[in-house]
């Protein structure tokens, strides 16, 4: 194998210093624009124009019919003259030594491996952090903030409220969430609330109360940090229904019909300074009993459509950190 050689004819146009002069002139203009437009720029213009003129003249010599001086072809590199054909690398005076028998790792093989290996290392150094940046942030620093839903007195005992709030008020509408909240009254002297997420346990559409929603009694509350809470009294006598694929739940969130795989998720809560504060959501397989006496089968928060009990739970052994 030999490199293809360019023709033996002279290169045209030949080498010339004028382009360098032209470039210097342009550079002079650019520098002059910053330093002193009145003095340096004209000098640059003169240099550029003069060099440009001579450059154009020399470049068009051939076309204007002037004789072009014979230019020596570039030398350097292995000259392929007709006299001597190329000497293969493994022959001649400076021949590469034939690999000894038993030499299992010749240098060419080493260089090949080194090129591939180094290339791989460089490629890895670039792509691994990039892919990590793409994937890891989705799993870190997640979690649910505590949301202050206002004073306890707003939640009339025994009354359901469609409660809308912002999970992250600064993120805007995209963090709007809805929960169905009922004050169950005191249980062993402690306040008891049922707080059901409206996220359908089928594929995450918003479930709606099966019963009248008293829009005319809507209460709007302003919270801290731009939090806005909307409370609408409702009577979900028929439980909840999902508009997307028809999943039906009873008033405690147990699945009664349709595709959902478990009961509706719920939120933990706390009472802080007389305010109801929403905690982390969790998943529920089913609920026995009602109101403050309900027995809730509680599981770690799991995505919609994923089983938390029954044999199917082996399909979802791990949940991303939330």
């Amino acid at each position, binding site marked *: 194998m030999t490199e293809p050689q360019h023709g033996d004819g002279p290169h045209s146009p030949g080498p010339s210093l004028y382009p360098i002069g032209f470039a210097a002139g342009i550079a002079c203009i650019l520098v002059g624009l910053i330093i002193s437009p009145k003095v340096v720029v004209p000098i640059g213009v003169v240099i550029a124009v003069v060099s440009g003129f001579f450059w154009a003249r020399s470049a068009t010599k051939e076309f204007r019919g002037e004789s072009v001086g014979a230019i020596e072809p570039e030398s350097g590199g292995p000259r392929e003259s007709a006299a001597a054909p190329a000497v293969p690398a493994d022959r001649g005076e400076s021949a590469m030594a034939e690999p000894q028998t038993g030499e299992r790792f010749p240098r060419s093989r080493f260089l090949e491996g080194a090129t591939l290996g180094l290339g791989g290392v460089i490629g890895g150094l670039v792509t691994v952090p990039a892919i990590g940046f793409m*994937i890891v*942030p*989705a*799993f870190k620093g*997640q*979690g649910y903030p505590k949301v202050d839903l206002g004073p306890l007195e707003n939640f009339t005992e025994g009354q359901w409220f469609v409660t809308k709030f912002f*999970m*992250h008020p600064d*993120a*805007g*509408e*995209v*963090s709007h969430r809805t929960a169905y909240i009922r004050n169950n009254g005191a249980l062993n002297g402690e306040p008891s609330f049922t707080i059901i997420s409206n996220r359908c346990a089928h*594929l*995450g*559409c*918003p479930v709606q109360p099966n019963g009248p929603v008293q829009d005319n009694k809507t209460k709007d509350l302003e919270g801290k940090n731009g939090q806005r809470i909307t409370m609408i009294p409702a009577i979900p006598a028929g439980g909840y229904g999902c508009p*997307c694929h028809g999943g039906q739940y009873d008033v405690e969130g147990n699945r009664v019909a349709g595709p959902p795989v478990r009961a509706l998720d719920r939120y933990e809560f706390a009472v802080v300074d007389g305010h109801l504060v929403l905690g982390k959501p969790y998943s529920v397989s089913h609920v026995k009993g009602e109101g403050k006496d309900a027995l809730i089968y509680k599981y770690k928060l*799991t*995505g*919609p*459509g*994923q089983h938390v009990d029954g044999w199917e739970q082996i*399909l*979802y*052994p*791990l*949940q*991303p950190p*939330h």
Partner: protein
Amino acid sequence: MATTTRTKKSARRRQLEAAINYPIDWLEERSGLVGALKYFLFRKVPGDTGWWHTLGSATLTAFLVQALTGVILAMYYKPDPQNAYQSIQHITNDLTLGWLVRGMHKWGASVFIILMFFHMARVFLFGAYKYPRELNWIIGVTLLAVGMLEGFTGYLLPWDQTAYWATVVGINLNGTAPFLGPFLADFLRGGGEIGTETLARFYSLHMLLIPGLIFALIGLHLYLVIRLGVSSPPWSREAAGSDYDDEPATNGRRGLTQPAARSGWRRNGGDG
């Protein structure tokens, strides 16, 4: 007299041809691109190919329309939750011809998917996926899947109620895949909940990552089409390998395993 005029004319024509050919030759000498283009455009195909064989290039055209209109829409679209919906209203209602380009992108998406299915049906019914073209079928199926992913990620971008809830359902659907599903869902959302990250994420997937993948796969797909040639329709009388009809065939794929059999309908010479 007439002879002189003709000579003059043809001399001028020769000059003109030389002037036209000069840049083409210049490019060819330095890159070989002209020859490659000729090889691509003027390759031999079976004599009885017909309209059915144009579905592939129709699909390609649909994709190029998507790429072009998408690039232009990206100049006006704002992928953040506060502005996305407004910017699309702006494109549709205010900007000159915005309604047209957005419409082309929206309807063209369906056209692209439908044409992919038609193209696939043609290949299936003609048996064109058989040896030696199985690999191209596999690439095609990958293209179909990636094309659907393009549809899924693009559907969120209008950021209206339909877009939002369809994406909620779509992501949760992915989440129900066994074992890794929950992690896939979090990856798609950019977190545990659809939030500010999700829209920009889908936008990036929709207009950079997935189209890049599609371009690469189309390149492979076309490379294999050129390398293996276009298959004859099943009713073809000059079907590949028919030169060997008078010899007892050792197996069904005999004709294609022997390069000589291809030379009848493939480009002669070249690297074939």
